[in-house]
């Protein structure tokens, strides 16, 4: 191996090296040996897929979509029914509220306070009104509420009514304070004028 003839390694023309020949014999058993492919008799070639399963898949997808649509519609209808069946409550704001006894917002009542408000109980707008009615009313009010759900519309109307009640009470108390302050001022002024006179 020391005096290697490169020609043998290159194109097997030179003097062969015994070690290389031995290696060739050992490794030669592993060399590629072309042979024909033996297909087992039991293995049949795969047939082209039938058209039917593809149709079945499409049909199943449509069926699932229809089922989902039906489920959504029934839930939507149920929700609308629940909105319609909402029982009358005195208020719909954040906390539990007792009997609110202030007349309806739409009425022109003049000075209003809880004291002189009469005895008719307050009803939030559209108790038990169907959703489409509420939505129609919202549209009639010129309010763009396409993004509001039916429950939100009801909540908003109730909140609006509550807001007006709160403003009424607040303004009546402020008005009373203002009038009293003016009375006291005028009395003092008259008193001072008498003193000077």
């Amino acid at each position, binding site marked *: 191996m020391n005096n290697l003839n490169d020609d043998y390694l290159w194109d097997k023309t030179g003097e062969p090296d015994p070690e290389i020949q031995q290696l060739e014999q050992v490794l030669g058993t592993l060399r590629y040996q072309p042979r024909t492919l033996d297909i087992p008799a039991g293995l049949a070639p795969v047939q082209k897929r039938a058209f039917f399963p593809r149709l079945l898949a499409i049909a199943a997808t449509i069926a699932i979509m229809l089922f989902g649509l039906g489920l959504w519609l029934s839930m939507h209808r149920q929700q609308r029914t629940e909105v319609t069946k909402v029982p009358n409550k005195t*208020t719909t*704001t*954040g*906390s539990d*509220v*007792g*009997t*609110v*006894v*202030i*007349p309806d*917002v739409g*009425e*022109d*009542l*003049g*000075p*209003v*306070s*809880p*004291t002189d*408000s009469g005895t008719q109980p307050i009803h939030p707008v559209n108790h038990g009104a169907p959703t489409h009615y509420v939505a129609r009313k*919202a549209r009639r*009010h*010129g*309010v763009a*509420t396409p993004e*509001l759900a039916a429950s*939100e519309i009801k*909540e*908003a*109307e109730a*909140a*609006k009514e*509550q*807001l*007006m*009640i*709160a*403003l*009424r*009470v*607040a*303004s*009546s*108390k*402020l*008005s*009373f*304070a*203002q*009038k*009293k*302050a*003016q009375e*006291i001022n005028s009395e003092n002024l008259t008193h001072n004028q008498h003193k000077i006179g």
Partner: protein
Amino acid sequence: MKSLFQKSLKTIALASLVVLSATATAFAQNPRIETNQLDALSAKASQTVDVNIDERLIGLAAKFLGKDDEEKKVKEIVAGLKGIYVKSFEFEKEGEYSATDLESIRSQLRNTAWNKIVNINSKKDGSVEVYLMSNATQISGLAVLASDLKEITVVNIIGNVDLEKLSQLEGQFGIPELGIESKPKRKN
């Protein structure tokens, strides 16, 4: 080592004091009045008004305001508000509520953040106290405590209450005249 420990202790104590005072200040400057203690009165009351509208509900209600000019004005007024809370109890008989009930509200309004702007005491018509909480630029809260022999009312409005705009509401939607007049312009 002892000196280091003492220094650390002092620092911790000082930091705690700062945190406590900051918390106390923040609490004191909260325009929300606690009125839940009055809820027990509803059992005795012949009429009760309890309105709790937070910022979300105001926003929601505001979507339904704007039908006409008046509602637009209301919308403008409530736009700066973060909450409107009203509690009012009317009784059949006198003496159904105690001075403690009033004091529980008044004590909250006694801190420096609130300024009593009106105090009416009338034997015939009862008393009304109006408080404002404001910072350098704007009002952050309004509180009204009204009482007579058969009635107690607490109004608490959170946010920038525009009194001038509020005065424009007078007589609309059955809202009575507030009598709040804008200041006359001074002539030079």
